[in-house]
């Protein structure tokens, strides 16, 4: 996937470690009508169940608001392993 980004199209958001802050950021981006959210997990070496909850919740909000999609980028081995263990890789769009 090319790294194209436009103001109302795809936008990349850094993830964590403050989940409440990330939630707020995601909430604002969804409200702004972005169709594609790319959550950048470059700095996330381990993800908690709450973190996963936040990703799923963001996807719900995004779908309800714009019908858009959520992509995870720069996924490290730790988070990837847990998402795979929970069979969530297909649920959450992964972009390598």
């Amino acid at each position, binding site marked *: 996937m090319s790294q194209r980004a436009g103001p109302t199209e795809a936008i990349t958001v850094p993830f964590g470690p403050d989940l409440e802050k990330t939630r707020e950021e995601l909430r604002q981006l969804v409200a702004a009508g972005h169709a594609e959210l790319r959550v950048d997990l470059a700095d996330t070496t381990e993800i908690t*169940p709450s973190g996963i909850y936040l990703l799923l919740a*963001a996807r719900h909000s995004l779908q309800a608001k714009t*019908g858009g999609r959520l992509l995870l980028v720069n996924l490290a081995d730790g988070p990837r392993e847990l998402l795979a*263990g929970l069979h969530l890789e297909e649920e959450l769009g992964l972009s390598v």
Partner: protein
Amino acid sequence: MAFIEDDETLQAFKEESREHLDGIESDLLAIEEGGANLDHELVNKVFRAMHSIKGGAGFLGLEAVKSLAHAAEDLLNKVRNAELVPTPPVISSLLGAADGLNRLLNQPKGVDAIDIASQLAALHAVLSPPAASTPIAVSPLPTVPPPASAGSAIVDSLLAGHAGAINDARLAGHTIFVLEYDLIHDLEQKGINPLTVLHDLQGIGQMIAVQVDDQAVGDLETEAEAWRLPVHLLYSTLMDKDMLTSFANLPAERTHEIPVQPAPAESTAPEDLAPPSPASPPAPQAAPPAVQSSPPAEATSPAQPSPKPAVSGDDSKAAGADSSIRVNVKVLDNLMTLAGELVLTRNQFLQIVHARDPQDFDTVSQRLDLVTSELQEAIMTTRMQPVGNVFNKFKRVVRDLSQKLGKEIDLILEGGEVEMDKTIIEALTDPLTHLVRNSVDHGIELPGKRKEAGKPLTGTLRLTAFHEGGQVIIEIADDGAGIDTVRLKEKVLSMGTLDKAQLDAMQEHELLRLIFLPGLSTAKEVTEVSGRGVGMDVVHANLSKVGGVFDIASKVGRGTTITIKLPLTLAIIPSLIVTTSGERYAIPQVNMVELVRVPAAKVKDRIENIGSALVMRLRGELLPLIRLDEVLGRSERYYLDPREQQVKTCRRQQIEDRRRLPAGEGATAGLETQGPDGSGARSEAVTEKREQMERRFSPQSAINILVVSVGKFHYGLLVDKLLDSEEIVVKPLGSHLRKCQIYAGATIQGDGRVALILDVVGISKLMNLSSVSDRVRGKGQQESAPLNTDAQSLLIVRNSPSEQMAIPLNLVSRIEKISARQIEITGGRRNMQYRATSLPLFTIDQTAAVAPLNREATHYYVVVFPFGEREVGVMVSEIIDIIRIAVEVDDTTHKQPGIMGSAIILQQITMLVDLFGIVATVMPEWLKHTSLATPEAGTRMTILVVEDSKFFNQQICDFVNAAGYTTFSAMDGVQALGVLDKEKIDLVLTDIEMPNMDGLELTTRIRGDGRWAFLPIIALSSVAGEAAEKRGLKAGVNEYLIKLDREKTIQTINRYLNR
């Protein structure tokens, strides 16, 4: 309560209930679509169906079925009375109930062996919520429901989806559990890493499935305190429940043991269900199949078992829904009548045999023929089912999937009434489901994306079935994103299945077919969601098994259409019977496009040899040809000698005999006696005197070609004779022949002989066929043609407009344009004055059967090249072009003195001119008279040429010979070592890339042997570049030169050999 143990009644009930359920699904979806605008008739219909199932189940004592149907009936009653709007959650619970009933009915043993608590709970949740009577739209994201009821639907789907794995685990002595975690509260907040728990569990048991309850997750508005992340683990282990509970860090109430027998340990059926009582029996109604035995009946019909409605399969106990089939009574009556006719005919036959009266024989034969055909037809109709039976299943698939993916999709079904054989319909279900899912999942874009692309937000998926040419065509068309062949190519390239040249040579439709490549499943790069093409190879294989042929058309941004052509039936197929090498074969007409008969005299015009492949020009297209006898490995070929009317062994290698008709063309008449070294193909007939009635021109030598199709790709199959077209009965091949991919089965013919049925797809695979058009598309494409040949510069020349020739440019010193007046004839030979000497002139047609030089022309071109120590010229009429290409040289078909072979260049068969050969043939004495070429034993230096391409080997030998050296040639390193062992070699010229032993290894070996440690080795390669040169020098070559750089090669040889 099960006072009826009658298996037949139970089977009848199951079959009928399944039909009800089949109908219910599509009806429920229609009700959902209607929303508040209730279609009362439809709701009544579903209500009656549930009521019938409930009644029958009660009668037969099937408690679980009864209670589930009862609950569904209650809910439908509320919908009917407008107390409840059929919102998606309501319909989902009803669909869930229908699913549960289906599973119950498909149980091979007792029908109560499945836990239906979850479906019941779902129904009751909808039936009695706090505000159930207020018709409000239920939010698709329920807010944090209590764990037990939220999870039960998931538990159910987990159990249903992994029945096989559960069984396997039980067989291994494992107990099955469903562990219900809330990852946030049970683990995270207690500081436990979920991965550790997963790993620990996997260490002492088997994780069958994991399901996160996505529905329990809210959205970004949900405050952190309310966050829950429920996960269900379907898990098998040897531990008991107590041990597992403590091990898994989980409260006992959320560790559910899944019992083997019906009585569920954790959750039993609710008590509010009416006690079992004899109720009305099942009544057939509105069954979807086209054939239906009785009219719809009201559910409260008198209590008496309905007649067994089906022509039962051989195993009435089989669990599957497809072991029996409903047949219209009229069809049965017709069958009975025909059976009666058959008996009558048999009696007549017996009478004839008894009376030995041959006169009546014909009449009875005709009658038998008629009755048999009608009987066959009637029986086939019992097997025919409407495609709609499969199509209707997709409403649910598309609904569920599009809801899950957040897409809006309009499913349009057309041609559901088209009928096909039951076997094909069954085989079709799974592959079609897969294709539909693929279209929904990967084809149609999310609404946001569609909006951007200027498409309607709602995507369209269209399934169409129709008849065409005795086949059924099924199209699955979406208006989604289409398949991006560029990405597809990248993916295939990265998989290493095909190389770039192969991919570049592919046409669009061939590229699209790459999605059927095995292993193209996890193509995340292609689709970014999950593997597009998951199991597409399996889809392809399964459909091919029932004779399905695929085509794909796709436009990026516009959508994809997959077309499947299927035979109507598999048991009896119309076929053409052909013979080859004396054996009969059947070819299904489905695969045939047309028959082409090429008269003997036209063969040379229409059939050509490209590389080693035969092709035919058919209406401007090149059609690859395959000889059936070659496919079958029959080395002996026969033909009927037209003069002697005898069958003789055919020794002819080339079918496209390039020789001309004996009469009329004076210019070539004499040629056929030339060429003492003519190849095998020529020599057969060259010495024979030509007659008009000879084999090449006899009508019996006409060539029969069956043009067959593999999808959009066509090829021609050469057979000896075409016999009849027949309807053949397909018999499967024995297991020992199953692996022969060229046969699809066998059939027994009227005379008792067996004919094998050919599989045209298998044959094309076996022969590695590809569309020829790619190979001859043009100059641009040609340069990327086969990698195993070496590129070189060619001078394209012509003597006549129809015949193209090529001269290797690096053999040429100069090209001169001369006026016809400059040519002088001295001593019967052409010469011209040239740079103060006399330049001998030759023409190609002096030695080769090619069009002669245009004698009327005022100007000619002279190709000047060195021959020994002198220069000579070859005249041609026209210079067309100089091109650098890689060609595959056919060095047999056109080989003759002066022509070293042929190749396809610029879409034309082009003869490669052997300049050296022309002069050597016309003036053999020059070879002796050149001082270089007078070998005095021991004085002439010897060079070993090692090169795997015959063409290049010949070229190199020629110019090295011309420079006054004796050459030995070897085709690879192994042969070269053999020559070195036997002969005294002064220098080695070697190619690098060769089979068996390449040039580098050869060099290493030579250097490693004391005898040849100082032997000069010159590497000739088409691979230029420093790295390649370094490798060569490292291995021990003295010089690294570019192949066919004639001057430099000779200079270098001279330098090393001190000349």
